[in-house]
């Protein structure tokens, strides 16, 4: 019953004209960037972060989260119609979704994808609402030792589950930690790694780092790749799935929702992992696995449900524990900090209207997305014919204004360009940038909690293993690392991420 009371608070907060409007803007933008290949939710949220300064915290978070789950809907449109992942979590949807489109059944695939996403979204939002309060209660008992172990677990899992090479991911995390330490040390007042520059005494701005690495660097890399003609778009056809489609789809949708919801909570998880897992499961348990790749509706229903479920539940660790689990959540945590809210278990109690309003808005957003993506699919299809050479100057404009308007400072812009070039270098060297952002965000927090834990224990490092909660978290760390060393898991991980 408490849940109903909470949702009541949320309804009241979400159903203001202002918040509804920003929810609509968020999911529309999300669909847009989801549809367009070469522009993802991470870059978009990074670009729009500074512009949310002027909004209320609730409106800002509602809009930014709308971009993330909206992109999960939009990504499937491009995957099905063009055979390109509009969004990285839609990679597997290309396989069967586009095969269906070649058979003239694109409309049915689009409809099943949208319906699956909606069901998955609704169910996992309920899960998020139900799990939040009890989890936060546990988290409020955390001391510095537990927090340190939790963050360590977050970083370890992010490395294990991240795309690409493990060694590089660890190195990127450490570099992120180091970058997070730039600025004045809160305990001693010493300025660290500022190289005598007064602009760095408050640290490297979150906007600068995310915009450089995710905005500018991506544009440069895309410009290198983009050649030639706008893509071939398949015809949409009838949007009505057959009875047979529904019969085949409902089970994969529910399985996908479950898988996506669980994998989304894991640090380093999010939307993509669930989609891959769901596709593999559906193919494994199918009576005729050879149908997969030839336009099996299950291969659309499962992964598309899973990626949206994952997108929704990946909010749990960030909102409840204050632990961002992927790049998007790192940006969301950054957005909260910009508005003076420290993400963590205390947010539910201190700002209930913000917390529950955000959750209710997600459901409203999912409903809006259903409308945006089915009857209006024609509009998005037309957008696909806009070539990148006309698109990127506007992306660049948002980056420029975003960075410059924070402090009207040339220094910030120069630093952003530097990070953009560094980010380009990382892309070329196949170093995933997401762990760097997580490290950057967690660096100061980890140091603070390590110091406090060691001070409380009088310099005795066993404090991390003698406190039961902390020990549990550390055991999970070891298990996560151990999992990596099992050859079978390694091979699966390699296969899962190599299709990107």
């Amino acid at each position, binding site marked *: 019953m408490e849940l109903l009371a909470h949702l009541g608070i949320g309804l009241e907060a979400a159903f203001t004209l202002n918040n509804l409007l920003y929810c609509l803007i968020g999911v529309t933008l999300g669909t847009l960037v989801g549809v367009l290949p070469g522009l993802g939710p991470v870059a978009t949220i990074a670009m729009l972060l500074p512009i949310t300064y002027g909004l209320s915290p609730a409106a800002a978070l509602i809009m930014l989260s709308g971009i993330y789950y909206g992109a999960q809907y939009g990504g499937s449109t491009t995957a099905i119609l063009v055979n390109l992942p509009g969004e990285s979590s839609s990679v597997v949807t290309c396989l069967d979704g586009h095969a269906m489109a070649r058979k003239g059944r694109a409309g049915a695939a689009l409809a099943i994808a949208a319906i699956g996403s909606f069901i998955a979204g609704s169910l996992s939002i309920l899960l998020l609402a139900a799990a939040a309060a009890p989890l936060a209660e546990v988290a409020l008992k955390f001391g510095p030792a537990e927090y340190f172990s939790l963050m360590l677990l977050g970083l370890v899992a992010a490395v294990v589950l991240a795309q690409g090479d493990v060694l590089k991911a660890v190195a990127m995390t*450490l570099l992120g930690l180091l970058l997070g330490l730039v600025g004045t040390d809160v305990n001693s007042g010493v300025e660290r*790694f500022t190289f005598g520059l007064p602009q760095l005494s408050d640290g490297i701005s979150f906007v600068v780092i995310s915009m450089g690495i995710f905005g500018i660097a991506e544009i440069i890399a895309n*410009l290198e790749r983009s050649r030639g003609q706008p893509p071939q778009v398949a015809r949409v056809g009838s949007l009505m799935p057959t009875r047979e489609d529904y019969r085949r789809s409902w089970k994969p949708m529910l399985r996908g929702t479950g898988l996506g919801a669980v994998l989304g909570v894991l640090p380093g998880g999010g939307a993509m992992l669930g989609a891959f897992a769901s596709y593999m499961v559906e193919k494994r348990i199918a009576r005729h696995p050879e149908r997969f790749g030839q336009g099996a509706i299950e291969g659309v229903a499962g992964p598309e449900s899973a990626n949206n479920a994952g997108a929704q539940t990946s909010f749990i660790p960030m909102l409840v524990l204050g632990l961002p689990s992927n790049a998007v959540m790192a940006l969301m945590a950054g957005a909260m900090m910009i508005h003076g809210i420290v993400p963590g278990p205390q947010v539910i109690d201190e700002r209930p209207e913000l917390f529950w309003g955000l959750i209710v808005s997600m459901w409203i957003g999912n409903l809006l997305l259903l409308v945006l993506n089915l009857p209006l699919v024609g509009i998005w299809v037309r957008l696909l014919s806009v070539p990148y*050479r006309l698109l*990127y100057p506007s992306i660049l404009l948002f980056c*420029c204004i975003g960075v*410059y308007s924070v402090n009207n400072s040339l220094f910030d812009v120069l630093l952003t360009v530097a990070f953009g070039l560094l980010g380009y270098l990382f892309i070329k060297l196949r170093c995933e940038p997401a762990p760097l952002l997580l490290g950057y965000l967690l660096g100061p927090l980890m140091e603070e909690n390590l110091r406090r834990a060691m001070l409380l224990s009088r310099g005795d490092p066993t404090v991390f293993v003698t406190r039961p909660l902390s020990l549990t978290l550390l055991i999970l760390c070891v298990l996560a690392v151990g999992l990596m060393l099992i050859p079978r898991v390694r091979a699966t991980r390699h296969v899962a991420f190599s299709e990107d």
Partner: protein
Amino acid sequence: MRDALQRAATARPHSLTLNLDAREVLAGCLFLGFGLTGLLVGSAYASGTAMRMGAGYFPWLVSLALCGLGVALLVRGLWLGREKVTLDGLFIVRPALAISASVVAFALLLPSLGLALATLCMTLLSGLGRHKAHLGELLAVGSALGLFSVLVFGYGLGLNLPAWPV
């Protein structure tokens, strides 16, 4: 075909002894560089004890680990590479240069020229990042974006930025 064979023949003794992966080596150097910088600059900060950590304790720990990983990547790239990767053609300078220049130009020009013209200049410069730049198209896109930025960012969102030349 013959060229390829010839190249394979000349490259053979080299690749037998050493599968140098330039990407790994470069990444290793990069991380090692950051780690060493961290150690060097961080050595000035008091490290304190494990109980009362100074400003230098945690940075030292992180930098040291970063150095270790840099070395590991370096070793892997030099001797344990799975494929031979050279730096030829890995980096294309033109887009990086054009995009950087356009962003810096925007920030430099904005205070004096205003949003509309700074946006136009940014668009034109960014257009140089492509192989074939159509001046007419860039002018059109730039003007449209300039107008858009004045309307949305200048008047709409009310950011404190000059719209026109002052």
